[in-house]
């Protein structure tokens, strides 16, 4: 009888080695990795931008023999947030979901850690936005990968002609469409000058429009302004810090500034400020280049006069509201290694370049090393209108609610504490002390576990 050609010891050794290599091996792009991958992705408002993402996913899918399906989910009516919440509760759905800003923190218990992907990206692309890190990292682990698609900052978008005509200010000189900025001129662009020009523009019948409702545009720009005055609601150790001279100074400033805004800003949604600028009735807003892009289509004469540039500087610095988007892999996803590989592929510089181009410069990656894409130099009219959209100088990205613990900051942000404070003071004519006290009470309640 022929003897089996392997001893028991050898057999055990071989199987152990084989099993260990299967378990520990990284995702390999071979036929064994084939399978399906389902993505639920934010539906881009720029026509054609989704096509580029689909094209990139298909390219990756074909190369890796993975069937990729993408559902584009609108953010209208928070449908994307609702879908993600439903999937998280049901523990079923797509493998990858895109999440806006705070949603990684909301769902972190059902998200797969993605440290390996983010660390690899950082090793390649350099430092990542601190706002992205604050939003996607929990207990030292990354639970989301910052996307290029949808991520944005909300700097000033101003009318060149109106600022020149009514304020004698050439914004292209302060913020040229190249690296040659005059630091003195940039320093002069502060909240005092902004207030002075706001008054001039208001008197000329073309006021600036700062939304002060409860939508993200309002919350992002208002939060950045509070930070420019050094005001924070709560620190990372749960100490409530809203009752401060800095907060009072910010509210005093808002009291003056909001008098030069149209009264309807308290009811504006995220499109309100865009429509204000596009209609030609306003001289400036704080927004990503979406208002300019729509004006380019609907009112090209206005678009020709739009210039995106840095926020004014305050006593505590120059802050701009940032709203990064993320991809998250559900812990119940079926094909996690493939999901990680696809997300790494989409986040690399070449792919990000294509995505930024498809969005005509609206999408802003979280890596500063990506800010050299030529899209921001080339789009027009006028040439270089969005060159200063990525923070290039001393502008610091910020998210409203920071530096509170992210799960508390989520509530600060979504319950619009900042804008309600401003509205109470400026629209409701409530005394500042009373409003600060109200905010203290609200913040105390947010510490509930």
């Amino acid at each position, binding site marked *: 009888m022929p003897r089996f050609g392997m001893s028991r010891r050898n057999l055990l050794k071989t199987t152990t080695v084989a099993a260990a290599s299967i378990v520990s091996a990284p995702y390999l792009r071979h036929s064994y990795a084939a399978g399906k991958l389902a993505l639920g992705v934010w539906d881009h408002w720029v026509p054609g931008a989704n096509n580029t993402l689909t094209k990139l996913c298909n390219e990756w899918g074909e190369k890796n023999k993975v069937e990729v399906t993408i559902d584009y989910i609108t953010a209208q009516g928070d449908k994307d947030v609702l879908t993600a919440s439903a999937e998280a509760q049901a523990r079923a759905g797509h493998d990858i979901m895109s999440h806006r800003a705070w949603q990684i923190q909301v769902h972190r*218990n059902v998200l797969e850690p993605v440290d390996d992907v983010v660390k690899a990206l950082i090793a390649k692309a350099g430092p990542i936005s601190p706002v992205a890190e604050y939003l996607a990292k929990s207990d030292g682990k990354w639970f989301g990968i910052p996307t290029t698609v949808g991520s944005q900052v909300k700097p000033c978008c101003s009318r060149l002609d109106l600022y020149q005509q009514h304020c004698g200010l050439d914004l292209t000189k302060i913020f040229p469409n190249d690296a040659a900025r005059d630091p003195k001129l940039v320093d002069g662009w502060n909240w005092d000058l902004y207030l002075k020009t706001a008054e001039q523009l208001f008197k000329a019948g073309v006021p600036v429009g700062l939304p002060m409702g409860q939508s993200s545009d309002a919350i992002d720009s208002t939060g950045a302004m509070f930070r420019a005055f050094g005001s924070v609601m709560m620190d990372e150790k749960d100490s409530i810090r809203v009752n401060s001279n800095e907060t009072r100074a910010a509210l005093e400033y808002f009291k003056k500034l909001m008098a030069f805004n149209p009264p309807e800003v*308290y009811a504006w949604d995220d499109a309100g400020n865009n429509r204000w600028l596009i209609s030609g009735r306003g001289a400036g807003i704080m927004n990503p280049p979406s208002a300019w892009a729509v004006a380019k289509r609907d009112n090209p004469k206005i678009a020709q006069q739009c210039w995106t540039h840095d926020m004014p500087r305050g006593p505590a610095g120059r802050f701009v509201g940032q709203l990064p988007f993320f991809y998250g892999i559900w812990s119940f996803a079926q094909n996690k290694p493939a999901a990680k590989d696809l997300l790494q592929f989409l986040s690399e510089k070449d792919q990000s370049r294509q995505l930024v181009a498809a969005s005509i410069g609206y999408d802003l990656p979280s890596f500063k090393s990506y800010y050299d894409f030529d899209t921001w130099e080339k789009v027009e009219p006028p040439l270089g209108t969005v060159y200063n959209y990525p923070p290039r100088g001393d502008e610091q990205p910020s998210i409203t609610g920071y530096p509170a613990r992210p799960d508390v900051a989520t509530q600060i942000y979504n319950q619009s504490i900042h804008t*309600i404070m401003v509205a109470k003071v400026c629209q409701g004519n409530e005394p500042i002390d009373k409003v600060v006290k109200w905010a203290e009470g609200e913040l105390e309640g947010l510490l509930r576990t």
Partner: protein
Amino acid sequence: MVEIVQRYPGQLDVPVARPRASMRRFMRRRSTIAFLMCLPLITIVAALIVYPAFYSIYLAMLSKAQTKFVGLGNFAYLLGRDTFWMVVEQSAIFALSAVFFKALIGLVTAHLVNNLPAKGQRKWRGMLLVPWVIPLALSSLGWWWLFDPTHSALNWVIRGFGGNEIPWLSDPYWARFSVILVNVWYGAPFFLIMYLAALKSVPEQLYEAAAIDGANAWQRFVHITLPMMRNIIAITVLFSLIVTFANFDIVQIMTAGGPRNMTHVFATYAFLLGIRSGDLPLGAAVSLFMFPILAISAVFILRGVRKRGRDMG
């Protein structure tokens, strides 16, 4: 009820066949057939209403991270929040005033339509029902355009007549008025159709007798129409109160609870806390606060309906 089992002479008790026979009898019962026919509906109700209702009660008793049972902790927390009490007050203002005006407009319009000649009545009935049959999200959007903070069509008309613009959505009190107005516009046709049906069921002889006794139109309305319609009024008010208290679409689309949280109602506030802020248990607790309020009003209204039914019977 005693079940009568008929036995034939010579019939033997066969133990093996008995379960099948009794099964057959059970299946032939009217109540069994009725139950089986209702089963699809019962399943749907259980899956889409009963299960979510119990699940939301369970959810409302969990901690923010849904990892700990906190009993009534979320409810106690809400009772201590000023903003929540503001939402309670606003929900009550919204629901009570909207239901009052819907009932009033419905009653007046039903009388007007009822007094129209039979030939043209159907057209009017159809036209007046239009607001109720358009999907609410769509009509709210239409109203939002009319009230648009910057480019309001209504303000354009007002300006045309030389008037001052109205801050429909940017002033908190006007915003409250606007959302109530849209709710009344949407809901009044439901009252109209219910009251019209009730009016048509009032026997004509009663009015004739009252007219012979010299009763005027107001006396006929107070002493005949209203008592005859009391039950239908109570039931429509109860039904509308439940639906209006739970309203979400109108407020969410038009104001999203702003300005200054002053138009939030239970449903929009629950959405803000539960979905947007990621605190599902607290959101569930807010939405469940409606339950006792509505349950108590339902008990009182239905008790009145039963009492009047007994008195009339």
